[in-house]
C-alpha cells in the first residue's frame, strides 16, 4: 500500500491507544529509535503494532554525526537492525554531537562549522547511510552559542547534501529559536534552503529560558507551536511544496485530541501548498 505522508505526530506511549486508533488522512508517527534498541518486550511490541497501522519515521538523537570520532559501530548495527525490522518511511538524525570518550551526553551539542568539521560530518553521515543502506535526512539543531564558524549554516548543510547524498530535515522552530538567540533572520534562512534537499519538516513549541537575564529561547517541545513558526512553515511550503511535516511535543502533553487538532493545522498548511515536488511515500 502506498500512503502519502502528510502531517505526523511525535509518538508517546502515554497516548498509544489513541494513536493506534487514529485514522486521520496522511497521519504518521515519529519515534526516537534509541528508545526501541531493545531485545524484546512490550515496548518493541507496541512499535510493531504502530507500524502496522501507520507509517513510521525513526528520528535518531545519538549518532553524534558532528563528533570528531566516527559513529559508534555497535549503535549503527543495532539501528540498522531496527530499520530492517520496522521499515520506516523516513530516517533522520541531527547535525550535532553527543559522544566523547565512550560516554554520551543526552543533548544535541553544537558543531563549529569549519571545513574540517564538514569533512568529518560528511564521513560520519556516509557511514550512517552505508550502515542503513538508505539516505538519511539531517536536521538543523537549535543554537544557543556564538561559535567561530567558517561556514554559514545553510551553505554548510547544502555542501553536506552535495558531498554525502543525504537529505535535510528542516526544523522551522529551530530556525526561529536560533535566529532569535543569535540575532539572525529566520525568513532569509528559510528562503535560502534548497527545496530539492528537504525530505522532512519539523514544527514544535518553545519557551523563554527560565533565567530571563539570558534572553534565550529554549527549544523545549513543551508548548503549542507559536504563530511566527506557523508562518515560517507556510513560507517554506509555499515555495518548495508540501513535505512530511512533524508536530513534536515532548513535555506538558495535552490530551491526544488537542495534539491531533494542532497536527491538523500542519495538515492544512500542507494541503494549501503548491504540489511542486514528488511526495515521499511509504
Amino acid at each position: 500500500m502506498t500512503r502519502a505522508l502528510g502531517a505526523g505526530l511525535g509518538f508517546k506511549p502515554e497516548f498509544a491507544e489513541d494513536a493506534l486508533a487514529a485514522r486521520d488522512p496522511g497521519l504518521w508517527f515519529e519515534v526516537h529509535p534509541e528508545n526501541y534498541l531493545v531485545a524484546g518486550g512490550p515496548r518493541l511490541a507496541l512499535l510493531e503494532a504502530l507500524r502496522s497501522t501507520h507509517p513510521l519515521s525513526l528520528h535518531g538523537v545519538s549518532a553524534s554525526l558532528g563528533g570528531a570520532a566516527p559513529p559508534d559501530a555497535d549503535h549503527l548495527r543495532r539501528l540498522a537492525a531496527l530499520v530492517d525490522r520496522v521499515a520506516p518511511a523516513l530516517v533522520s538524525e541531527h547535525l550535532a554531537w553527543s559522544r566523547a570518550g565512550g560516554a554520551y551526553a543526552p543533548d544535541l551539542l553544537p558543531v563549529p562549522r569549519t571545513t574540517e568539521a564538514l569533512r568529518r560530518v560528511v564521513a560520519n553521515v556516509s557511514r550512517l547511510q552505508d550502515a542503513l543502506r538508505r539516505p538519511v535526512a539531517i536536521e538543523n539543531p537549535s543554537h544557543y552559542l556564538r561559535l567561530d564558524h567558517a561556514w554559514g549554516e545553510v551553505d554548510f548543510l547544502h555542501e553536506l547534501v552535495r558531498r554525502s547524498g543525504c537529505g535535510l530535515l528542516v526544523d522551522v522552530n529551530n530556525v526561529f529559536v536560533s535566529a532569535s538567540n543569535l540575532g539572525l533572520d529566520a525568513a532569509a534562512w528559510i528562503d535560502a534552503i534548497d527545496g530539492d534537499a528537504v525530505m522532512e519538516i519539523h514544527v514544535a513549541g518553545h519557551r523563554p529560558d527560565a533565567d530571563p537575564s539570558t534572553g534565550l529561547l529554549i527549544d523545549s517541545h513543551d508548548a503549542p507551536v507559536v504563530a511566527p513558526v506557523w508562518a515560517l512553515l507556510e513560507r517554506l511550503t509555499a515555495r518548495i511544496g508540501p513535505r512530511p511535516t512533524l508536530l513534536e511535543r515532548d513535555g506538558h502533553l495535552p490530551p491526544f485530541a488537542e495534539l491531533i487538532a494542532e497536527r491538523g493545522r500542519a495538515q492544512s498548511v500542507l494541503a494549501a501548498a503548491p504540489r511542486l515536488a514528488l511526495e515521499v511515500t511509504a
Partner: protein
Amino acid sequence: MTLVEFQTAFWRDLWAEADDRAPPEGPAAQPGFAVYRNTVLKGCAEALVSLYPAVHRLVGDDWMRAVALDAARAAPPAGGDLQHYGAHFPAFLDQALAGGDWPWLGEVARLDRLWSECHVAADAPVLDLHTIAALDPGRLATARLVPHPAARWRWCADWPAFSLWQAARTAAADPNPPCWHGQGALLTRPAGAVLGLAIDSADCALLEACAAGQTLGEALDAVQARHACFDPGASLGRLLQQGAFAALTEMPS
C-alpha cells in the same frame, strides 16, 4: 582550534561541577552554555529517576534528584539508549548510604534494575507445567531447564528486599514488610507485563543451577543437599507457573 580540541574543552566544561570549573572562557563563558549543561544533567538524572521508581518513592523527589545528579556526574550514560543506563546506580547508593539508616536501599535499587532488564529482554515462549508433566520422571531428571531470557532473580540474605520493593512500586498503603528476614525475588515476563514473586533461597539456588546448565536431576540434588526444607515439586511448580523457564532440552539418547 581543531574539532577534537573544541569538543574536548566543551565536554570538560559540560560535566564540571560549579565550584571546580576553571574561570570560564570560550563557549562556557556564554549564557547559552548553561542550556546544554542543564539539559544534559537533567536528562541523565531524569533517566535514573524513571529507571528507579521504587527508590524514588522511598526517598522522595528532592533526595532522589540530588543523588541522581551525583550518580550521573560519576558515571554518564554510555549511549543514547537510556533504558540501559544506570547499572552503576545500586552500588552508588550503597556507597552514598554507607552506615546510614537504610542499608537495604541498594537492594531495592537492584530489584528496580532487574525489572528494567526483564522489561526489555528478548521474547520467548514460556515452558508450561503440562509439557513437564507429560514427561516420564527418568527423562525429566536428565533434561535441562533453560531459564526464560526475561527471567531475573536475586536472593537477599539480610533484608526483605522484595517486600520493600513491591510496596514502593505499588505505592502500598502499608509499606512495612510482613517479616524482617532475608527474601528472594523472581521477575518474569510470561505475557507482556513484568510479574514479581517473592521466592526463597532454595528457589534461587534451583534457578542458578539450571542457568549453570545442570540437568534437572543434578540441580534438584544439589539444592536438596544445601536446603533441608526444600520441596522440589512445590519449588518447580512455583517457578514454572511464573514463567521462569523457556525451554526443556534433552540430551540425545
